[in-house]
């Protein structure tokens, strides 16, 4: 026994020495080779970086036909020309990857604010049990909080889930079969049932023939988004850990909830899936939006169907217009931390009134209109195709009577109003929330003698508006925005 104890002591001493050798001469090279995400943390984040953006493919995807390949993080950075922003983007990554990236940001860095992409899809079984998980988890082994030699040992002996594609698929199927919704008003028991019903009922084309492509896509939306995020969801645990880490390191934290193709989901699947969307979105907003030091930028339903690149699949890959919308929204949230550095790069800052940045104003029965932007026909430049509108709104409860109005007076003196219901874009009551719209500058816009833009509150409850921000720019893509037209007599007091 004594001999055995001596040998154990010798083994331990040997391991200590080997760990030193490995940590000194081999570890960094191995990290760069087998855990390239750490390269991002080391190489992108230099001493002058004050904001970092962590993202996945939503940040760096662009349409085949697009000439502008700039990322969401690039567009956001345009708003803060005096603040250096670092971009840590790796396709298919999720909160666990971000957590490890953040852990490896050097203590010497000047990082003040961290923007973490929050992708609703990453909470679902299709992503949790994705075939890419084996490779992603393998990357993280060397980044564990153990001595370097122990990490390398864990990597050598495959201390990560090695599964074949079929085995991952089986886990997804198991989840679809066994994870029950238990939600009142939702007529489906689990994904398997719902998918079966949708597949059986299906979609039919104009000739009455079953449209298998659309049916499959509808089923795919169910399989992708039909789940209920709970406290024990692995991604929730990762986001919780990110909150904790950012607190420890004194970083401002912004979770950037990415836009999903709500239009298509609604069209293909309908209210039942919308119910789950709302439940899951509210879960995330409630869990993280109320935490000190954490801001959640809710882009969830901001991007319209036409701005999604993948029309036959579920992704968060946006055309430039979509990327711009999210960047604009994110920039508004970042402005709270960097008010003096904020510049609107696409706006014309001039005295002609093309650009409007209002102060806070309360709209109520006595004073239902916000500050109004007035344009004349000759002030609409030919290369402008789009208007971006963003403002912050605070309302007491759910309202459907606040609109953003675009009022046009044509040459005959006929007045028409396009209105955009604000409530569709506002998720939180009682706190400041963002609303953004992207409007097309069509022919009626160009021929109008006078165009006015303002927020109008019809209701009895007061609504507060601040930082109304209107900017014009060329179209990156011809985005369609659903608008409802009202005749002038529908309004009580247009001015």
């Amino acid at each position: 026994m004594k001999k055995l104890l001596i040998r154990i002591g010798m083994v331990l001493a040997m391991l200590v020495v080997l760990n030193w050798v490995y940590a000194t001469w081999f570890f960094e090279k191995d990290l760069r080779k087998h855990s390239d995400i750490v390269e991002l943390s080391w190489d992108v984040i230099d001493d002058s970086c004050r904001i970092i953006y962590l993202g996945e493919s939503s940040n760096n995807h662009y349409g085949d036909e697009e000439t502008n390949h700039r990322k969401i993080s690039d567009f956001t950075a345009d708003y803060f020309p005096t603040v250096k922003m670092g971009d840590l983007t790796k396709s298919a990554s999720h909160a666990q990857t971000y957590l490890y990236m953040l852990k490896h940001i050097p203590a010497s860095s000047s990082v003040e604010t961290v923007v973490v992409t929050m992708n609703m899809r990453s909470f679902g079984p299709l992503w949790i049990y994705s075939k890419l998980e084996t490779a992603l988890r393998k990357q993280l082994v060397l980044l564990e909080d153990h001595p370097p030699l122990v990490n390398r040992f864990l990597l050598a002996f495959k201390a990560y889930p090695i599964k074949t594609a079929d085995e991952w698929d089986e886990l997804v199927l198991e989840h679809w079969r066994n994870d029950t919704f238990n939600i009142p008003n939702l007529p489906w028991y689990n994904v398997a049932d719902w998918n079966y019903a949708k597949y059986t009922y299906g979609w039919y084309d104009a000739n009455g023939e079953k449209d298998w492509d659309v049916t499959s896509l509808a089923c795919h939306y169910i399989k992708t988004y039909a789940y209920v995020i709970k406290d024990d969801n692995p991604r929730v645990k990762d986001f919780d850990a990110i909150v904790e880490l950012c607190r420890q390191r004194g970083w401002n934290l912004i979770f950037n909830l990415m836009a999903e193709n709500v239009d298509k989901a609604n069209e293909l699947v309908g209210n039942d899936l919308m119910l789950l969307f709302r439940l899951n979105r509210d879960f995330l907003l409630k869990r993280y939006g109320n935490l000190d030091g954490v801001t959640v930028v809710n882009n969830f339903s901001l991007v319209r169907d036409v701005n999604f690149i993948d029309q036959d699949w579920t992704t968060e890959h946006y055309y430039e217009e979509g990327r711009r919308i999210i960047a604009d929204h994110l920039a508004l949230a970042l402005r709270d931390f960097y008010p003096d550095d904020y510049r609107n790069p696409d706006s014309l800052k001039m005295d002609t009134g093309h650009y409007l940045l209002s102060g806070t104003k309360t709209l109520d029965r006595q004073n239902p209109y916000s500050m109004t932007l007035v344009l004349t026909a000759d002030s609409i430049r030919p290369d402008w195709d789009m208007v971006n509108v963003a403002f912050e709104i605070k309302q007491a409860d759910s309202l459907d009577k606040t609109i953003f109005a675009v009022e046009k007076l044509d040459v005959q003196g006929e007045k028409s109003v396009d209105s955009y219901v604000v409530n569709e874009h506002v998720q939180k009551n009682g706190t400041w929330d963002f609303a953004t719209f992207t409007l097309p500058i069509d022919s009626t816009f160009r021929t109008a003698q006078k165009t006015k833009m303002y927020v109008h509150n019809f209701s009895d409850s007061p609504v507060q508006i601040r930082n109304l921000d209107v900017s014009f720019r060329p179209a990156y893509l011809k985005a369609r925005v659903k608008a409802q037209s009202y005749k002038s007599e529908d309004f009580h007091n247009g001015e």
Partner: protein
Amino acid sequence: MVFNSIEFLVFLPIVVLLYYLLPHKWRWLMLLAASCVFYMWFVPKYILILLVTIVVDYAAGLLMERYADQPRKKKAFFIISIVSTLTVLVIFKYLNFLTENLDQLCASLGMETHLMTHIILPIGLSFHTFQSMSYVIEVYRGHQKAERHFGYYALYVMFFPQLVTGPIERPGNLLRQLHEEKRFDYDNISKGMRLILFGFFIKMVVADHLGEYVDEVYGHLDEYNSWTVLGCMVFYSFQIYCDFFGYSTIALGSAKLMGFDLMDNFRSPYLSKNIAEFWHRWHISLSTWFRDYVYIPLGGSRVKFGRWAFNILVVFVLSGIWHGAAWTFLLWGFAHGLLHIVEKALRNRLPSKEPKSKWLKISIDALCVVKTFVLVSLFWVMFRATDFEHLKAIFETAFTNFHGGEQMSVKPGMWIYLGLFILSDIVLRNTRFDLWCDGKPLAVRWLIYAVLVFMVIACSSVANFPFIYFQF
């Protein structure tokens, strides 16, 4: 459960600890339970196939012994046992191949059939069915007493260190040892650890690094030139050797920790001077199985040359098919058999005088070793090719594309690992790593351990290569 996994590194010490803590009468039960856990870690339901084989062969053993004085009955039980074991093997290993070929045959005759099955091969099936058959044959021949204790018999088939890729043990060796009461012995622990460490080195450092190159080249033949493909053939020869030798060495070490001595499976096969010697040194447990249960019953070498050649071809073709249900494996076995026959025919005709000069003898031996290695390496291409098309493409690229394609660069580390292995193979030609270490001073031993531990942890490939022989 695979050996080079965290799970096994947790599992093994627990089993060894329990083994020594438990009284002898309960050890079989613990080892059997551990073996079940080990096997079920892969695909749990396939343990039922093992159970069927075990029950049938266990019963057959008892019945053959009971009816030892009634040869016809005894033979009937023997045949039932062999047929049932082979039926399991055919269904799970060869049915896909047979039905696919039947479909193709029918298609060539203008008939459309859909007989093709898609049965997944249970891991280690060829190994444990052969081990089970060796028991039945030995009992039938009267060389082995039938095992009365079902648990011990089940453990003989399922003993986890050698369950999935051998060595294919004989009852005379393993079953006997399972009954013996093993006492804790530091020497066994030390030797077992050495073997495991050395096995990890050759599998994880040498074989898996080589595998990265081999997979790259054989997967993208159109991108590389002949020199690269020829180099890759050499790499594959070492990859498959190190992969299988590594597994066998870890198996030997794991068993040794509990005091069990499994048979050696390899003895520096690439230092063989001819193909016959190669098969005395390569996968010894399988080649001796075929020798004892197929070759000798067919008449062995005590027959005329023609008959002997036939026996050899039968044995090697069977050996090829044993490895895998594909025409390429059959061709591989046939090629080895043919080479065996050609070499013997040449030896019979050439004068067998030993050269007088020591250096001339060494030079001739070296040339023979190189010749055997080159031929074996060429044959391994049949083993590695996924089908005949792939096989043709490999040989075409290897011999016709000397001026086109890329030359693959090999990292210096790879040459160091391979060089170290070749050196160890030469040094350990007539011994085993654990025994070789015994004769070295403590400081040298510990230096070797430190280097191996460091290489296994810090220099091992991080690619996930399952053991090649798992597929058999």
